[in-house]
């Protein structure tokens, strides 16, 4: 079934006609000045009408997409009079979020001597980490070094990254790969054990480690399996999202209010330290974009942490991944991994011509795709009106030999063949999709925040990647900072004494909203997007 309709087939013939010639054609990288002009004109972050400043809290004035601002300025689920005197369980370290960052934090917190509860929204592992395909960066080859990695990260982030955070990221990177391998993760390797490593957008050395195109899944299921092995010391609570943090009378974090998603009942879990690891917010569909993110990616952690006084940063920049599926409609917005370009597939326009270097940093690449379609009218339009450009996947096997795609991109092949498209023979239609939250809660290199007892790890945080994350650096971030936050939280919990738990900050939050006259009509965190038609 399926396949491309006739109008699109016609354009595919142009792509085929230019393919041989493009095999030896390298499109030049874009000079820095041109990059900025392109971003100003075509990147969604630069569309002023779709952004605004938040009006309350310690980071007031910070600019972000309208949809996110509305959620951050939302009203809490529970009132300050919620009964905190009948807690359900109690622990040293409470981890909120069962993705890669939460699982890493749980393991290391436990190893550091803490009793741990990990509470998560849906099933443990229903997370962006599970969906990551392309790879994880680490400078471990002889011609590479953490210093070179540092330059790539900071240049990719437009030189706005927090230097301490980048340093920890690149220095811990090889250690994390080693840790994952000892936990039994299967990396792609040569027969002699050498890691198979490739380029990603914005890398100057080949340092992208992979596990076929299930890299995130392999990390996630390995970490999850290990957490389950320690069930005596790490308790996992599923279908129970946190909705509010609890502070004590000294303003120290002392646990969270969690909701049983099915019974809609709220309960309090006291904890001496909390690691917030709730991931990103793609399901808020900023500027109406489709997203690659999992169902529960609704920016909850940013909302909860902000109400306790944690600082936010970098939320004015979201990552739109250049290659979201634009056809077929059923998988609109789902990811075509960057590894496809890493392996040699070129983006080309309706006429079969290249128009951008295939591996620019993501924001530049995405803006170039949008310009090619909206600005120059050189895109392809699907029967439902969705624009896109071609990603010439058949080139991969011309470069690396037959079988390369099945070997390296099995998930991708499966995804498209379900809809009658054979990516070894036909190109894929792609268009930018909402992918990653570059910003979030500010943190120190040890995972701590300005709120005592609150630690942060993973996509919910802001500062590591500056204004643009490179592929492969966020699987790295979740493991590096998951481990750091887990360790710091366990150490903090050793000496922490719980005071009188209180929701006074929730009362203050409501007052502040009232004082400024803000009412976005949203109860947040929103937990799940509502896709039902009857609304």
């Amino acid at each position, binding site marked *: 079934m399926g396949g491309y309709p006739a109008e699109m087939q016609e354009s595919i013939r142009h792509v085929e006609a230019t393919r041989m010639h493009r095999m030896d054609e390298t499109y030049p990288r874009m000079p820095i000045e041109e990059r900025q002009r392109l971003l100003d004109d075509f990147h969604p972050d630069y569309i002023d009408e779709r952004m605004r400043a938040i009006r309350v809290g310690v980071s007031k004035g910070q600019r972000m997409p309208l949809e996110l601002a509305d959620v951050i300025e939302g009203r809490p689920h529970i009132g300050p009079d919620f009964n905190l005197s009948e807690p359900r369980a109690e622990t040293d370290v409470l981890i909120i979020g069962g993705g890669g960052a939460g699982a890493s934090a749980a393991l290391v917190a436990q190893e550091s001597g803490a009793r741990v509860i990990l509470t998560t929204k849906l099933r443990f592992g229903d*997370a962006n980490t599970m969906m990551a395909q392309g790879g994880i960066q680490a400078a471990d080859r002889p011609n590479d070094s953490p210093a070179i990695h540092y*330059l790539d990260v900071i240049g990719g982030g437009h030189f706005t990254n927090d230097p301490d955070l980048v340093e920890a990221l690149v220095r811990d990177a090889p250690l994390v790969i080693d840790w994952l391998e000892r*936990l*039994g993760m299967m990396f792609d390797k040569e027969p002699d054990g050498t890691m198979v490593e490739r380029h990603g957008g914005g890398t100057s050395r080949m340092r992208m480690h992979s596990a076929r195109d299930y890299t995130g899944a392999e990390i996630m299921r390995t970490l999850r399996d290990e957490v389950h092995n320690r069930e005596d010391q790490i308790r996992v609570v599923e279908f129970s999202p946190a909705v509010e943090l609890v502070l004590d009378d000294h303003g120290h974090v002392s646990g969270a209010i969690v909701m049983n998603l099915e019974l809609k009942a709220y309960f309090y879990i006291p904890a001496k330290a909390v690691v917030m690891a709730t991931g990103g917010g793609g399901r808020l569909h900023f500027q109406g974009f489709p997203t690659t993110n999992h*169902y529960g990616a609704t920016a909850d952690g940013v909302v909860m942490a902000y109400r306790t006084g944690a600082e936010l940063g970098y939320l004015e920049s979201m990552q739109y991944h250049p290659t979201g599926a634009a056809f077929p409609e059923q998988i609109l917005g789902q990811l075509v991994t960057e590894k496809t370009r890493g392996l040699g597939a070129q983006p080309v326009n309706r006429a079969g011509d290249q128009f951008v270097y295939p591996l620019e940093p993501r924001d530049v690449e995405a803006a170039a795709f949008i310009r090619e379609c909206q600005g120059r009218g050189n895109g392809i339009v699907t029967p*439902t009106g969705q624009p896109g450009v071609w990603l010439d996947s058949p080139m991969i096997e011309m470069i690396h030999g037959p079988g390369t795609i099945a070997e390296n991109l099995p998930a991708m092949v499966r995804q498209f063949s379900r809809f009658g498209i054979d990516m070894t023979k036909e190109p894929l239609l792609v268009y930018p999709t909402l992918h990653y939250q570059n910003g979030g809660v500010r943190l120190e290199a040890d995972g701590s925040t300005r709120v005592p007892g609150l630690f942060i790890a993973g996509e919910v945080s802001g500062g590591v990647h500056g204004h643009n994350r490179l592929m492969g650096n966020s699987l790295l971030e979740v493991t590096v900072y998951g481990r750091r936050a887990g360790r710091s939280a366990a150490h903090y919990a050793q000496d922490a004494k719980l005071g009188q738990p209180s929701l006074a900050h929730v009362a203050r939050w409501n007052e502040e909203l009232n004082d400024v006259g803000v009412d976005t009509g949203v109860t947040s965190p929103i937990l799940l997007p509502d896709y039902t038609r009857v609304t």
Partner: protein
Amino acid sequence: MEDQQQDLIPVHIMGKRYMVPPTLTIVKAMEYAGYQLIRGVGCRGGFCGACGTAYRVKGDPKLYFGLACQTVVEPNMYLAQIPFFPAQRATYDIAQMEATPATFFSTYPELLRCLGCGACTKACPQDLDVRAYMAAGMKGDIAEMADLSFDCIMCGLCAARCPAEEAQYNVAILARRLYGRYLAPRSPHLAQRVEEIEGGQFNTRLEQLKELGRDELVQRYEARDVEPEERG
């Protein structure tokens, strides 16, 4: 999309009939019908294994399997989201094991009960040959089981169908972890780099980079040499 006049088709969700557009996936069809899903939905991209589903089509005796987020509806489908299927899982300490068939059989003795019936293979939405990876397991071939099961998303459909009450995907992840930790050849360059980092070798260079102002950083960034892509 909305303005396109589509003919709706009937599907049966938990026994109730609804009319939905024929282009939707099962997950989206249920939402279209008004369900706010909590169970049987996860990443919506075919990776997390939360939405493994079994369905029938009216007049067809066959039972079909798929991922609800990746399967398009057909007229007269009978749909229900099955929650995660309970399965036996051993608890073990990967650091204290040996990658031998003996470890394997003592951790999951029920592995040897597999009948080779292939019901699991028919159910797998990833099109894995589950029976074959179980057969590799029974031979004690950890490497082969790890390789054949690699694309498993742990959806549990195989376990739901197995007459021998196996938990195939749990055995398979043990195989992969044993392979990754013990059998895969070690990477010499990684070991070397770990040692260098632990010895503090890059600390000074990183400190220096952190001190650089923006202009200097931009200059160094622009001047980076980019390793050529290997071809062929």
